[in-house]
């Protein structure tokens, strides 16, 4: 196996499962290592047999239709829900044994806003900055970075797009070495999508994006993983992501029907 200094490479295992391997990056553990990861809800498996290594600094797209297990996979990787089988390591820290160490190194931008509806945008950022232990001097500047004006109204009055921008501001505030994004383009207008794209490409560190808007998300990533009905079905360069998605689903979903 030749080591390629970019992120993720894939090979089918004996059973035909897609197994990803990180290319060796100069020293240091991979950002994410999942071994035999599976999560069930009751008697239904949300996803199973996921072996994944994401090298530090890599950008991985996880694509798949609704119900393919992307969101659950991200939640398990982010330690918000424990896996039913298997283990997750974040930069070498076992998420089950030492969740605090794993959590301190990552942030998840999820469907739910992760915000306090009764607080204004600036208040939310101030509260979060204190909890993170890195006091924020200028919330207005941070809001401006994501294109939000400092409004005194509570988040309850925000539109979906404004919430998404505020979530991104929270992400920039935490600035973790590992960023997990679940459907970052959902509920955004074209201008918003453009802004989010710019922000994501500006992120430092490792990025994992889960999206069914394959074409748009693939441009931000260098590798891609295709999930289908809870199984990893294909892994390869992001350049071929649209092709793989289309091959599996038989429809051209390049622009994600957003």
């Amino acid at each position, binding site marked *: 196996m030749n080591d390629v200094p970019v992120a993720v490479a894939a*090979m*089918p295992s004996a059973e035909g499962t897609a197994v990803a391997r990180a290319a060796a990056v100069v020293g240091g553990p991979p950002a994410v290592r999942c071994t035999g990861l599976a999560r*069930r809800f009751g008697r239904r498996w949300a996803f199973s047999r996921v072996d994944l290594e994401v090298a530090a600094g890599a950008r991985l797209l996880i694509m798949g239709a609704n119900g393919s297990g992307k969101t659950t996979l991200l939640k398990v990787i982010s330690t918000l829900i424990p896996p039913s089988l298997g283990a997750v390591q974040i930069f070498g820290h076992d998420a089950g044994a030492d969740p605090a160490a794993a959590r301190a190194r990552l942030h998840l931008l999820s469907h739910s806003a992760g915000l306090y509806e009764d607080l204004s945008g600036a208040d939310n950022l101030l509260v979060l900055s204190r909890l993170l232990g890195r006091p924020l001097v200028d919330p207005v500047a941070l809001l401006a970075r994501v294109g939000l004006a400092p409004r005194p109204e509570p988040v309850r009055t925000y539109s979906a797009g404004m919430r998404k921008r505020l979530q991104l501001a929270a992400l920039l505030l935490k600035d973790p070495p590992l960023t997990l994004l679940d459907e970052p383009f959902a509920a955004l207008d074209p201008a918003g999508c453009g802004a989010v794209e710019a922000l994501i490409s500006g992120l430092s560190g490792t990025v994992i994006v889960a999206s069914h808007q394959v074409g748009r998300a693939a441009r931000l990533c260098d*590798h891609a993983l*295709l999930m289908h009905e809870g199984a990893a*079905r*294909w892994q*390869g360069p992001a350049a071929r992501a649209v092709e793989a998605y289309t091959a599996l689903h038989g429809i051209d979903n390049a622009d994600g029907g957003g």
Partner: protein
Amino acid sequence: MATTQSGGLRWEHGLLALGLALLAVGHVQGLFFAPAEAMMGDVGRILYVHVPTAWADMLVYTACFGFAVAALWTGKATYDAAVEASAEVGVLYNALLLFQGSVWARPTWGVFWTWDPRLTTSAVVLVLFLGVLVLRRVIPEPERRLNLSAIAAVLAYVGVPIVYFSVKWWRTLHQPFSSPQTVDGSFITPLRLAAFGMIFLGAGLIGLRWRALRRGLERDLATPDLPAAAPALRLPGEAGGSAAGGAL
């Protein structure tokens, strides 16, 4: 353990038979052979059913607490089933206790309900453990049901002494009250027989319910078989095998 089907005799059937027999003997003795109580007369005979129920109920709730701690500790379905089984039996005994208590209070004190510390405490505990059973019925996810209902059972049980003391002070700092506790000589034998009867019967009932509940809960909490591995998708131009660097 293999699930042998109906018909087989098990330890809980032995306990049930023993409990019923002891209870019957104790009650017949208490009803027809023991002398009438000095102050309460024949009505005092209710104590042969009331006091054993109270003792057994206390033990059943203690077992429920133990099972809840074990369930929290291990996460095993078998303890989860035991929590539900013992909470059910505890609630049954508790409801009987309240009924017997008020039936006893009416001729003795002239009212169906007195705010006697024991009676009041057991009413509060009944509601607490009914809450545990209700909670179990509204949580569909098996792991969550195990954790949350065990937590509720632990909180309910550790509160029992403090409930008892508060109610006791509430009464005694107000007005003195005699409680139904006059046990001597000739009353001991039927009381003991009935008490062991209630305890064995309770253990048998818990065992019976536990076995019935355990099957379902073990299936709920067991890890189902993994789905078959899905075949890897191959795009045109991709090499098979273990090629790295992006191609599959």
